[in-house]
């Protein structure tokens, strides 16, 4: 039974079918996050493997990463996770304006994190001359992993923006808001990946 074809059913049936297919979509989405998690894990494995391949870390000629700025930037991203959580909570309780404000705050904080990362890349590339391709395994693992994460954040910001537009157009109702749940799950996932990346790149 296609979710798409069910959504085209008559109006009275829609909510019942939504409840039935919601569980399928939720599980599918969670499994997608699991496989995405494996993608990150593989690159994290590659990073740890290369890091321990015997040249010391950071490799000769490269300075340690700046923890202070990264800590601040991480808190920005983690804060966006908290605001997203409250956006969903408020939506569940029907507090429309609070939902919108928390959602917008999430977008701003997410974009702020991306800006911070752009600043950090800029600093690394132009001040310390560390590049993706020119700095050996350090550049390879750092820019690949953080860049992949940054892409996820970027897609997340785009998705949340779509959520704002959809919500204004009245797509989601109090009984039918899987899109917001999926957005929250995805955003939390992106945050949690950053917890790991922050720990292994800056603290380890």
């Amino acid at each position, binding site marked *: *039974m*296609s979710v798409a074809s069910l959504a085209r059913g008559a109006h009275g049936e829609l909510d019942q079918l939504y409840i039935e297919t919601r*569980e399928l979509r939720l*599980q599918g989405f969670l499994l997608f996050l699991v*496989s995405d998690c494996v*993608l990150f*894990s593989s690159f994290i494995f590659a990073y740890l493997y290369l890091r321990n391949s015997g040249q010391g870390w950071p*490799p000769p000629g490269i300075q340690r990463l700046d923890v202070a700025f990264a800590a601040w930037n991480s808190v920005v991203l983690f804060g966006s996770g908290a605001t997203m959580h409250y956006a969903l909570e408020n939506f569940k309780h029907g507090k429309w304006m609070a939902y919108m404000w928390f959602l917008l705050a999430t977008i701003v904080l997410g974009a702020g994190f991306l800006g911070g990362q752009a600043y950090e890349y800029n600093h690394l590339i132009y001040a310390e001359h560390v590049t993706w391709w020119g700095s050996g395994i350090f550049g*390879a*693992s750092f820019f690949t992993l953080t860049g992949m994460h940054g892409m996820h954040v970027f897609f997340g910001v785009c998705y949340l923006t779509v959520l704002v537009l959809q919500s204004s157009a009245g797509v989601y109702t109090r009984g039918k808001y899987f899109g917001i749940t999926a957005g929250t799950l995805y955003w939390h996932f992106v945050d949690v990946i950053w917890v790991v990346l922050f720990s292994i790149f800056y603290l380890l």
Partner: protein
Amino acid sequence: MAVAAVHAGGIADHIHPEPQGFVRRYVFSLDHKIIGIQYIITAFVFFMLAGLLAEAIRTQLLNPGGGFVANGTYNEIYSIHGSTMVWLVTIPLLTGGFGNLVFPIMIGARDVAFPWLNMLSFWIFPVSGLMLFSSFLLGAPTAGWMEYPPVSLQGAAGTSMWCAAIFLVGVSSTMTGINFVVTILKMRAPGMTFTRMPLFVWGQFATAPLLMIATTALAAALAALFIERQFGVPFFDPAKGGSPVMWQHMFWFYSHPAVYIMILPAFGIISEVLPTFARKPIFGYKLIAFSSMSIALLGFMVWAHHMFTSGLAPFLQLPFMILTYVIGVPTGIKIFSWTATLFRGKIHYTTAMLFAIGFIALFTIGGITGIFLAAIPFDLHVHGTYFIVAHLHYVLVGGSLMGIFAGMYYWFPKMSGRLLNETLGKLHFWLFFIGFNLTFLPMHWLGMEGMPREVATYDPQFTFWNRFESFASYLMTFAILIFFFNAIWSIRNGKRAGANPWGARTLEWQIPSPPNYYNFKHVPTVYGLPYDFSTPLPYKGLDEELTDSPPVPAGAH
């Protein structure tokens, strides 16, 4: 909540009208049965192409000095042969093909959980296949299907194309895996508990998480190889501090589970065919089901047994050797259960049954040589020789492909409504079985004597057996041509099958062949295992009319 709704027939009992028009019915179809057939046809086209490449390999090896193709071309040929057979033939046939075709019906569902995603998975697959073959235009990869760096880093531009193609087909597999897991978890008919699911469904249920998890790990490795080749970002190049051994870890972390992706659904097919044609309940239903799951789990813990010669630390070698032995236990359980199923059965020697019995024989040989190879001292001796080639072909041809043929002869009536010709089928089986053994059995001793694999020429002392194998491989190809002829001929001229030509008891045989668009007139309630021959069928309500009328389209009042 939703589970209850599904089990009460909530999702299942709405019937939507079949889409009209050729394109929506047969090209961009959302119907799992059509998608399954699309997978099967496409995969067999790739099977033919890869088979031609295999014959080019054998023709080259007729003479010690080669001479059929240039040595570099030979490297391209065996690389593409291996890649195609693994990613474009065996995995799509067993998961996307037979999986889509029958397992939703077997659990009493009307379709998979995400039909649209299913269609997308399928359409990515031929595109990635075309990309893989177009890599010949750019200079195909030359480092075998494993593409070990640093050779793959130095390979022609086609190697990057290879990465992209395999990445795409991996995305398709991942989506199929997600789809199948959700379908099996959430869309079973009322009463279809886990311990009442047919064993083919168990095979798919063990495979789908592997597709989802392992394939993503491969995607990471391919992405890393791609960006290293295209942008010079060092992951694997030892000259820049990278590690070629890391590729082997990342690759085999996928590719060992991939071996189980290619065999677990075939185990499922065999577990359907054997009880049907032995007219006996399957022996050890739960053992077969749970051993599939334990193979899937253990499959993630044995990858480094492919790397005993790569300088792996000795303290890591031993656990990988032991775990590889451990994985032989659930596999052995299956072999014994199947043998016990045959014991004192009333065996009908149909072609499907012949292939299933052939599977048990050949897979046992492949499995036992696998146990040899798990032993580090033996592995060090034969690593990279024709012994490996013999072993992997016994598992993948003698195992997976025999399973696929068993499935084709078994389910062809369900696909087309007509039986495959049994006489041609038996000819196909015997020529294939004999040709296969004559081709690959001598490779065991060639490998023991030290003939290296993936080399275009060989020492003249191996000439006799190589020529012998090449001629035997032509016999095998001839057998497969018989199969293709049989399939094409039978679609129009085969005997009409009727709903249940084999007297089988799983759900797909209780509905017409080919099935209607939404499979069941009324979703049945399941009361027991499908394997207890001589008891009444454990299904109720198959022939009832729908209780709630189909939804009225909006605006039709």
